């Protein structure tokens, strides 16, 4: 499939928002190139703080700024903003209900070149379990901008996984308005539903194309709002298609797959198969190679859809 691309949708949008929202402040922990904050800093130097390799301090300083009326955006690699500062996020951000927006870059296998230590595959599981915390994973450049603007203009703690550098445009920005707890159905289909977020979205669209060639109509739902979750759309997927595959760039434990399975189990039990990293640590390598290695390609998603259909009983068991 072909798509248009946008360069640095996050960093560009952040600087633009800085212009419109004077209460916006931005914090870094020595990963400014990854968090793309240079543009914001050059325009608003008095509202940018680089705390150095001191993520715990960064998160609590952000909370202090927020408790004094600022909207604080602070970011680093997804592995650090979740694992390294979990206690600071829970107490000083979430419990205090501070207006802090946590930014995670190079999430999951996206940080392929840095290897296992830098592949944050637990961020969604950790942050989703924290009261007061919203969790969003934009699926393309359009959503990155829209969700960033949403969190900047709505008080309260939020976590946002963002793409670094180039991101595709898969959702038409004209007329798109992000709403938490609302998903976007990008493809209609009644046989099986592929629910996804982030970089797995294009792979799910490819998988749906492949399934279509076999006469299987797969619905594709981009679920960028991990928490709050679009429970209505999840239930509709279960009720109307009877089989669900969740694909995410995250450990299969506790992320979007877990969130969907929780709702399905409590409302309309049907098979839910999860594509993601199967509870293991990552490896160094190009993103495409890693997708093969960890069985997270469009072919693996399509395969999971067929297995889900078998479980559902539509296709005969072998």
């Amino acid at each position, binding site marked *: 499939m072909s798509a248009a691309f946008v360069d640095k949708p996050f960093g560009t949008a952040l600087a633009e928002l800085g212009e419109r929202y004077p209460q916006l*402040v931005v914090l870094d922990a020595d990963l400014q190139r990854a968090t793309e904050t240079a543009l914001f800093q050059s325009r608003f130097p*008095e*509202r940018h*703080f680089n*705390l*150095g390799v*001191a993520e*715990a*301090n960064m*998160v*609590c*300083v*952000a*909370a*202090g*700024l*927020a*408790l*004094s*009326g*600022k909207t*604080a955006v602070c970011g680093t690699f997804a592995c650090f903003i979740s694992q390294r500062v979990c*206690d*600071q996020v829970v*107490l*000083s951000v979430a*419990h*205090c*209900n501070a207006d802090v927006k946590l930014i995670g870059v190079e999430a999951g296998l996206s940080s392929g070149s840095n290897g296992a230590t830098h592949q944050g595959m637990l961020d969604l599981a950790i942050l989703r379990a924290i009261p007061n915390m919203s969790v969003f994973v934009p699926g393309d450049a359009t959503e990155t901008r829209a969700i960033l603007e949403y969190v900047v203009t709505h008080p309260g703690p939020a976590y946002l996984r963002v793409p670094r550098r180039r991101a595709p445009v898969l959702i038409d920005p004209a007329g798109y308005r992000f709403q938490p707890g609302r998903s976007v159905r990008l493809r209609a289909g009644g046989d099986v539903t592929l629910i996804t977020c982030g970089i797995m979205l294009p792979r799910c669209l490819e998988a749906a194309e492949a399934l279509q060639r076999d006469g299987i109509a797969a619905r594709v739902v981009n679920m960028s709002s991990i928490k709050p979750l679009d429970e209505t759309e999840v239930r509709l997927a279960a009720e109307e298609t009877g089989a669900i595959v969740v694909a995410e760039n995250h450990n299969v434990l506790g992320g979007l797959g877990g969130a969907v399975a929780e709702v399905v189990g409590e409302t309309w039990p049907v098979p839910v198969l999860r594509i993601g990293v199967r509870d293991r640590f990552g490896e160094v390598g190009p993103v495409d190679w890693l997708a093969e290695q960890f069985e997270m390609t469009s072919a693996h998603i399509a395969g999971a859809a067929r297995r889900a259909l078998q479980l559902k009983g539509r296709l005969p068991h072998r």
Partner: protein
Amino acid sequence: MTEPTSMAAPHSLSTQIRRDILEMIYLGGGGHPGGSLSSVEILVCLYFHVLRLRPDEPAWSERDRFVLSKGHAAPALYAALARRGYFPVEQLRTFGQPGAALQKHPDMQRLPGVELSAGSLGHGLSVAVGMALADRIDRKDRRVYALISDGESQAGQVWEAAMAAGAFGLDRLIAVTDCNRLQVDGFIDDIMPIRPLEAKWQSFGWQIQRVDGHDPDALLAAFAAAQETGGRPHMILADTVKGKGVSFIENRVEWHSHPLSEEQYRRALADLAQTDEATA
């Protein structure tokens, strides 16, 4: 209105607040007497003399901020807030009761006047740094105060905050360390020594003062000096006695967190009255 209607002498106020602390821990079936009793004069000086605040308008936008980072001293904070008029003194008796706003550690969502939820040590000074940065952006002339403990200073995050405040030259940030020399497991020198604190803070670019943390005059002089000196953040190292005022609690490691039986409560009050008379 920023001044309390009747400003009692710091000494008798401190004794009153110690009685409040003992009553709370007795009625609440537990709490942290040691670190609460050691920080009493510091809190009395702040809430009754130093802080610019409006108890009837806790969220007043021009108020000075006070961050209690050593959250286990919650009983001392609650007593200071109640005696200063933030909420009825009778509410102190709900400390630790099921569902009470006065939890064993401060909960800013539940109690007016509490600026930060605290209990996991090491966060508060960083938050205070953030508050001071916000004031700098907004060109506010208020100050940010923080109380940490010497045991807490074993946490690396304290020094991350120290480094940032020094680098940013946050001279409207005034921190106090309650140096009571003990931590949960024993004397700091035996568990993990952190001395010399003066040299450490100095090397991070802070202005240092060392005072007797139970001498209100010395504390007030230190706060005044800190307010008058620009260019650097301020650390007041306040030497205190853990459990101050109750002989069988003073300097006893087991009284970091401990309930009071009725007999112990009565003995503690008698003890406090005696110490009070001796020093009055």
